[in-house]
């Protein structure tokens, strides 16, 4: 038995030790906002936060997350992530939407560390997240917009 804390709630799960966090979150705990895209840490669709750091759940063994805070898109509630989600809507970002939860998880981790990222900061933080619909330009604008709103509200 492994105890995991997901979105501030404790879950006891009986799993294979090698099982990636992605499948524990999706298939066992039942939170499906975290997506499967590649299984090899190549696309970022499965991005979650482990103690606030953006990580790829598809290659993170569940056992390594014991005793740490796991946050998924369903558990985002701080001002930064909410402003990002509002900015995503303001810029009309999503198309198919499948990658967007992972994009927002990456963007949240970025803005928490860097309140006013440059384009190059955004490139560095977001290049691990693939969007096949090609919404990158709007994602960039939404991050800048959320950062600007954060500054205003400081």
């Amino acid at each position, binding site marked *: 038995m492994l105890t995991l804390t997901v979105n501030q709630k404790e879950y006891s799960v009986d799993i*294979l030790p*090698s*099982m*990636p966090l992605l*499948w524990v979150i*999706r*298939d*066992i705990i*039942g*939170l*499906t*906002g*975290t*997506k*499967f*895209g*590649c*299984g*090899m840490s*190549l*696309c970022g*669709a499965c991005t979650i936060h482990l103690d606030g750091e953006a990580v790829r759940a598809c290659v993170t063994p569940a056992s390594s997350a014991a005793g740490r805070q796991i946050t*998924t*898109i*369903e558990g*985002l509630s701080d001002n930064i992530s909410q402003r990002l*989600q509002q900015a*995503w*809507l303001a810029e*009309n*970002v*999503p*198309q*198919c*939407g*499948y*990658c*967007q*939860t992972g994009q*927002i998880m990456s963007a949240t981790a970025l803005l928490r560390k860097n309140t006013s990222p440059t384009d190059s900061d*955004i*490139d*560095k933080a*977001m*290049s*691990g*997240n*693939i*969007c*096949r*619909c*090609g*919404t*990158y*330009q*709007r*994602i*960039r604008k939404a991050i800048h917009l959320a950062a600007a709103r954060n500054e205003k509200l400081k």
Partner: protein
Amino acid sequence: MSKIPAINRRNFLKAGAVAGGGLLIAISLPTVVKRLASDKSSGAMIPINSFLRIGEDNHIHIILSKIEMGQGIWTTLPMLIAEELDCDWNKIKVEHHPSGKGDDFKAPKFEQGTGGSSSTLSQFDRYRMAGATARAMLIEAAAKKFGVQPNECRTENSFVIVGDKRMSYGEVATAASKLPVPKIQLRQPGEWKYIGKSQKRLDGPEKVNGQAVYGLDIRFPDLVIAVVAHPPVFGGKIKSFDTGKAKSIDGVVDVVQIPTGIAVLAKHYWAAKLGRDALQIEWDAGLNQNMDSEQQANHYRKLSETKGLSVQQKGDVAAGLQKSERKIDREFLFPYLAHAPMEPLNCTVRIDKDTCEIWTGTQWPLLRQTEVAAFLGLNPEQVIFNTPHMGGSFGRRGTFGADWVMEAVNIAKASGRFIKLIWSREDDIRGGYYRPVYLHRVQIGIDNKGMPSAWQHRIVGQSLFVNTALQDEIAPNGLDYSSLDGVNGSPYITPVPHHAVELITTTYGVPVSAWRSVGNTHTAFVMETLVDELAIMAGKDPVAYRRILLKDHPRHLAALNLASEKAGWGGQLKTGRFRGVAVHEAMGSFVCQVVELSIVDKKVIVHRVVCAIDCGLAVNPDGVHSQMEGCIVFGLTAALYGEITLEKGQVQQTNFNDYRMLRMNEMPIIEVYIVPSSEKMGGAGEPGVPPIAPAVANAVFAATGKRIRRLPIQKELLKG
């Protein structure tokens, strides 16, 4: 503004009551698919409807006749209803209809087939008429309650208003449902409040908070996950297999053989995947084990020296070429391309005694339903088809035969279980149904003014539509027009005094399917890089040369002029930057793109893309912008990196490491401009793809003097 057609209601609008109260407007959609459904299945003709439902709770339910896959139709079709209905935009709820569930009308089945960038233009009148009809009935019902004449009423934000009195649509919906369907008049463009004005996506909120349910997210307590070991070569068969190790993995519940491989069933994906890894299978690779991309190219090259099926012909092309001042002879080669939607293919299936229920994202629910019914020996009505959100498609979820759906049905049947099939990314990249390999062989004679005087054009490749449900429409007599779109009837070829366009259709052991913008993915590249080459040979500016050839094609010209003006064509560029241009018509829209790039260590860096589109009326301008941006990224990804290759019969690529996607750090600035146009409406989901690859190739020529005639571009440049 577009012309408002004369209104003929025929019989396609029906009104009725909703169980529990409310007004229902059903729009029947007689289309080609209706005929397909009746032809290709044992079932009778299926009524095809779409719904607008106004509940007593004031909610406006719009049940789509089209499928949302990212293109925005979830928002655009409701805009058309809202335009006439004067409803509260925030009270609109949209859903895909679950085909086969008789909840509102008897046996409602939707056409739903979504492709060819045709949804907005094909539904433009129907959805507005549904909204107008509902509004007229709501007004009439309210007028009766108010004791006034309908023409004394006005409507706003889901209320019928007379003087200072108002009644909500919900309050009068049930009374309205008892009235006969009235004659209505659609609003004039000058009165439009929604059409032509950008709207926020109605599916936005659920897509940013993780609540949107995709096929992969379908969950039930008794559902097991299935992962399939597919043959390493297309068409391969199982010789022998041992499931002992797989079955010993904790969580694996079953292993079954199906026609397309061995399926491992487990309580969750990870156990199923480990089970698949542990299978010991001996494959008979079969007839396709020697497939090889280079050999295929050589074979196609030989075929291109033979005569093909004539598609378009004028004068005497051989004589024309011979007597021309100068001549060029060019070959172009395009690789297989995978669609790679972000959501891997998946399908949930439950087979009960007399029914089969399916959850999967597909562009053709109705066609899928009839295919599954035929396979299981059921009537189409017994197959319930649910369409959750789709994590992209680009054609992959529209394949004929529905490979992944049939695979899932086979697993459910063989195992007797309620299953969800999940393909891994590797299954997706290696799973076929690619944009086909094409080879073009073009010989052009040039006159003393530098203009084309003879043009022989042969295209070699697999057909997308022969032996499919759309054969009669798209590939009559074996002549697949989807292989030719963009060459056949090209404004560059048609006026040439001596010309011949021919098609040589091949068969090859790789399954193929339409890929965003279909034939235009290769034809636009050939035409637009050739015209660029002709311009340079003639000593003319590429934009100016195109203007001469396109002088009788105002919509091409409008897009070309707007994009080149906005891009500052001919103006100064930063040192090391170069421009390229391409203009192409696809799906009834005319798109021009101007690329600005630099090349550093043989690597292409695209800085800026200026795009102009004439799609006629742009119903949701921001939606058109989004689609152009998406098309450009999709096309640029393929142009620079996209390639599926075969060696010893096996696909060489596996995942996003060797089938690369464009990423944030490679993203150019994209500017989109919509040509103000009152011309016929075209599509928006696909026509932004074709021009980007040739525009990049033309800019690469400007930068390096090298003409790219084999894709992908980056690989060609690195070759030296």
